[in-house]
């Protein structure tokens, strides 16, 4: 495991872009996925509390309900992921609304664990309606995540900030986020995926609006696409062709959907074989 300073992460990303390649980032909820993603050439790995739920066969959304201490879970996950990779920066999620921990000390704990950066997961951005207005007003919401990103930037800690609207993308860029993840909703597809409410064209338009808002606020911010209908290389090709994102951040699309398909497929293949003994007894 190697820990990267902020400028070292940037050098890595610049090298990727200089080769004309997209920046590809992956959420990893288990060490095996982190290792396989590294072999595939991933630029950055992301570790946060929804990953273990997802890879345990539950919905990623379980990470947004009150069934676990997200920050403890991510620190625990860090030990697993960080030891599974050799030379890839791993970004850890911080739940900024934690009532029992100081955010500054959480950043310390993430760095001490070996993470090379911080992201705002779990994020208030997934909540909506009256509940969202309530948590934003009571200091448990998105404004606190903007403060988290700003604090990281002051400490030279690399950040990936999820944003859900042009206003949030601009606020995160202004706060100093190195990468903005333009989030267009939970990833669709597969067995336990959410039903995507947005079509591909609308998702591309929403992504481009966030790219423009973020770059308007700070010219050198990197924006990547995430979520919604961007669930496979074909759909991601479309967002690369129609927007100005520099890359893609996949979580369910890189770990859940491929594992679902690969394991059920190989089991089916084994099941299709016929042992000599059973064909004899059937005869």
């Amino acid at each position, binding site marked *: 495991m190697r820990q990267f300073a902020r400028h070292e992460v940037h050098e890595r990303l610049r090298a990727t872009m200089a080769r004309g390649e997209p920046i590809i980032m992956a959420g990893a909820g288990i060490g095996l996925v982190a290792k396989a993603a590294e072999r595939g050439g991933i630029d950055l790995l992301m570790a946060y509390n929804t990953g273990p739920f997802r890879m345990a066969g539950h919905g990623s959304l379980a990470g*947004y*309900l009150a069934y676990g201490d997200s920050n403890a879970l991510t620190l625990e996950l860090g030990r697993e992921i960080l030891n599974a990779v050799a030379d890839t920066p791993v970004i850890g999620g911080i739940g900024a609304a934690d009532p029992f921990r100081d955010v500054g000390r959480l950043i310390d704990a993430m760095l001490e664990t070996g993470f090379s950066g911080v992201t705002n997961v779990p994020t208030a951005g997934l909540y909506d309606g009256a*509940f969202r207005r309530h948590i934003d007003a009571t200091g448990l919401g998105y404004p606190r995540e903007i403060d988290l990103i700003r604090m990281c930037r002051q400490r030279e800690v690399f950040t990936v900030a999820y944003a859900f609207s042009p206003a949030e993308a601009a606020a995160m860029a202004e706060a100093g986020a190195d990468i903005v993840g333009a989030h267009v909703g939970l990833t669709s597809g597969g067995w336990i995926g959410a039903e995507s409410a947005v079509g591909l064209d609308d998702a591309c338009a929403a992504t481009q609006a966030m790219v423009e808002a973020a770059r308007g606020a700070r010219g050198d911010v990197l924006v990547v696409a995430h979520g919604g209908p961007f669930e496979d290389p074909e759909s991601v090709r479309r967002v690369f062709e129609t927007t100005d994102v520099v890359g893609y951040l996949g979580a369910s699309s890189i770990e859940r959907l491929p594992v679902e398909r690969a394991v059920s497929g190989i089991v089916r293949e084994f099941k299709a074989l016929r042992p000599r003994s059973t064909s004899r007894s059937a005869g």
Partner: protein
Amino acid sequence: MTRRETVLARLAERRVAGGAIVVAGVGSGLTAAAAAAGGADALACYGTAAYRILGVPTALAFLPYDDTNALTLELVPTIVERAGATPVIAGLGAHDPRRSLERLVDAAATAGAAGVTNEPFVAIYGPALRAELEAAGYGFGREVALLQAAARRGLLTLGWAFDEEEVRRLLGAGVDVVGAMAGITGGRTAGGEPAEPAAEAVARLGSMVEVARTARADAIVLLHGGPLGDPASVGKALAATGADGYVTGSSAERSPVFAAVRDVVAAFRRLPSGPRHARGSA
């Protein structure tokens, strides 16, 4: 008699006597003892009650910083111990992906609970997340299944409903007591947006009571939340809606505890210091 039958007999007696049924939501042994001393017909113990005692915003009980079921199950034995003969209803999160509903209900029964309620509930979340949760299998249906598991275990069930449709589904599933919810209590004191206007909230509660009585004529319906924060407003709402009683929340815990401690500390602080000769400085 099962624990469920014992509690139901108690509530039926109260109903015959013509008094409002009061279930007190408590998050500490001290407030449990005080609520029992005040004559509460039952106590309810759940994540938001535990948080308001800690002095942190209660919305946290719906965010991923704790295991709400572990929190409640740890608290229930203390509450049961302090409650004496008053039955205790445990609030359980039905969407816990790592616990089966049967085991969860078993744990509550072992901890001494006489009943189960579906808190935390997904109805608190906004429409977009709520739709995603329903699609992912973490919806209201699991809350109903939790209550059914509790009933099979011989426990009383208190089902929270946010609208008429949820009232129908709860009664269709055989829930004993319906809690009609008007929204988060005291949004303003917690810094949230002002609650829905009182008249509208009471009208909405009234139609939920009506739906409940149509589904089951003798259904026990209790009110909670929104503008119902003191005995006067609750009295009016009971008269207007025909509900059987009220479940207290912040109204009988955070607000009175905060005011009482603040006032007594201020009263002590208004005392003059002792006479100089008693200090030995002379």
